[in-house]
């Protein structure tokens, strides 16, 4: 939902034992445009987002941006805050402070519905699928197709099945032989392909991938990487979390390293090496 300049994301919280100066420098490097100036190609901007769970500071004033037609890889060690950041952007959790901008306009995302209406779709690490529903119903959950009018308005299962089959074919997914199979009967890799298909079913301008290839075989992982490249070519802004360094260097235009809830470094694959990225992940100077 496009909601301008409202909500409680503005609250400024004091830093619990964090260093402020390096953050400012990191923000400069993450957002070279800086300040309030917004480039026309910028699809998503996260500005100063913090989130704590009790005494644990999961994110502290994290800022980054993703342009249209750009893939930004979000890397970091376990507990660095990658999934928390994805959940904030996708509306699953509400941040303590910070702002989100979509196409340069401030938006308030307080629920997954808000994110979807801003054009943000997500593949979550836990896939977020209903095991008792079949592939078609999971793909269209929350955005079902209808036919008929008035009290006789009903779900259009035939259209949803046809489009699901077409979407899976387009993704090159051939491991699911029956799209009416309940999710509980699918393997981990099949479930992940369904989650990918669900996120890419509509041409969303912003896609968030949280470990999209974690459970996939080589063939399916290759399809997903090719899909990411294809979507980038179409102008989609993609923020992707992955631990696979080879994939990072294959698809990313920029690499944002999170360390203990803060942006540790921003690197370009063309001018860095996997060793440098790993050092940044471990919190050492690149």
């Amino acid at each position, binding site marked *: 939902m496009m909601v301008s300049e409202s909500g409680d994301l503005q609250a400024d919280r004091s830093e619990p034992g964090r260093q402020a100066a390096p953050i400012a420098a990191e923000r400069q490097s993450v957002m070279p445009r800086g300040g309030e100036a917004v480039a026309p190609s910028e699809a998503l901007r996260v500005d100063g987002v913090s989130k704590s769970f009790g005494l644990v500071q999961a994110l502290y004033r994290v800022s980054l941006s993703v342009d249209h037609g750009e893939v930004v890889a979000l890397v970091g060690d376990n507990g660095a805050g990658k999934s928390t950041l994805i959940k904030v952007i996708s509306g699953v959790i509400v941040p303590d402070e910070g702002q989100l901008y979509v196409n340069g306009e401030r938006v308030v995302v307080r629920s997954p519905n808000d994110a979807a209406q801003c054009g943000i779709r997500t593949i979550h690490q836990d896939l977020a699928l209903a095991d008792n529903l079949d592939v078609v119903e999971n793909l269209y959950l929350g955005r079902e197709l209808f036919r008929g009018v008035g009290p006789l308005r009903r779900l259009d299962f035939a259209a949803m099945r046809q489009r*699901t089959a077409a979407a899976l074919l387009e993704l090159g997914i051939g491991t699911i032989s029956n799209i009416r199979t309940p999710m509980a009967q699918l393997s981990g890799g099949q479930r992940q392909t369904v989650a990918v298909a669900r996120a890419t079913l509509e041409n969303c301008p912003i896609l968030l991938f949280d470990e999209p290839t974690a459970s996939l075989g080589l063939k399916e992982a290759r399809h997903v990487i090719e899909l990411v490249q294809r979507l980038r070519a179409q102008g989609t802004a993609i923020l992707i979390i992955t631990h696979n360094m080879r994939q990072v260097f294959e698809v990313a235009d920029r690499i944002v390293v999170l360390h203990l809830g803060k942006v540790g470094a921003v690197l370009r694959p063309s001018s860095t090496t996997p060793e440098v990225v790993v050092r940044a992940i471990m919190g050492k100077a690149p």
Partner: protein
Amino acid sequence: MSEPVSPAAHPLDEIPPRDHARPTDRLVSFAKRWLSAALSQGTAMPAIASLVIIAVFFQSQSQYFLSPGNLSNLAVQATLVAIIALGEIFVLLLGDIDLSLGSMAGASAALLGVMITNGHMPWLLAIFIMLAFGALLGSFQGWWIAWLGIPAFVVTLAGNMGFLGLQLYILGPNGTLGIFDPNIAALSGTELPVSVGWILAAIVGVAVVASTLVRYARGGVAVRSLSRPVVVGVLIVVAVAVFNASRGVPTPFLILIALLVVAWWVTMNTSPGRHLFAVGGNAEAARRAGVQVKRIRMAAFAVSGTLGAAGGLIAASYNGSAGTLTGGGTLLLEAIGAAVIGGTSLFGGRGSVWAALVGALIMSGVENGLDLMNSDQPVKYMVQGVIVLLAVSLDTILRRRQSRGRQLGAAIA
């Protein structure tokens, strides 16, 4: 190149390649696949098989069990339990439970008695108000559960006691209100004329066949699914023939079927209906997909309350009064048992509204059969208890199998 993805209509539509196995082996293999599909999808087929076994057993014990007159009585007996069970299914699909439906039926019946007997209100208006009263009570509970996150067990347990108090308060010091309105009495004490029964059966049969053919033409169902309207048609003809051999189709049973058809349509063809299953399967996944989980939960309790009130209406009509015992006794437990026996999971996300009918017929059939065998009440309670225990055990085993299958799938991947 990847294999094509087929939009097959049913797991059974995946026909394995023909082999040279013996016909008996193939039959056993088909039976296994049918049972596996039926169990995993939470259909009422195992319960229907149980119903057949019960019918055969009690007919062997008493020649009157399958007589038209007894089956007609059985249908009327099962109606009240089935309506309450239907209300229960709406919340069971979410993985919640409603322990207040019995006293909600009682409170609603008491309100009806006051409106009809003391207030001399027109019967249709009184029914409308009592159903709205049930919806209000259900919504009230749903608000506590959905918005405050209080477990349904606790809220509806409190509701059970609170609504019982409300029922006694509405009834006043006399404790019983006679309801002598002939229209209210007709809801449970009349039957359709024989000719009307057949005409209705013909209309419903033609509608079912036409609907299936239209869906087939649109590519919405597979060839094998075309057998379904045939089965439904045969069931309708047999049921109407049996009822007409007695006194005609009982009105309360007709009301139950109408409620079931509407509930089936809502749960299978509308997004709020499908969202019930999604929330029951994985509430967080549904929330992340944009489903309004809180609204769905509150709506389910509102529907449940409305059906609780409808149960109160049938009970008041059947008894000709609203009293302190209306909606009490073992009604609620029988309804929950019927829903679970019919194939609705206590853990949410699996089941069908038809479970209310099949489960209620099993519960009432066992009671009726034991009555014909001159069994005592303690024996009846114990047998019903064993049946409920077996149904819940089956549900738990299925859930465990499903979970194990998923873990295995993840491990393989």
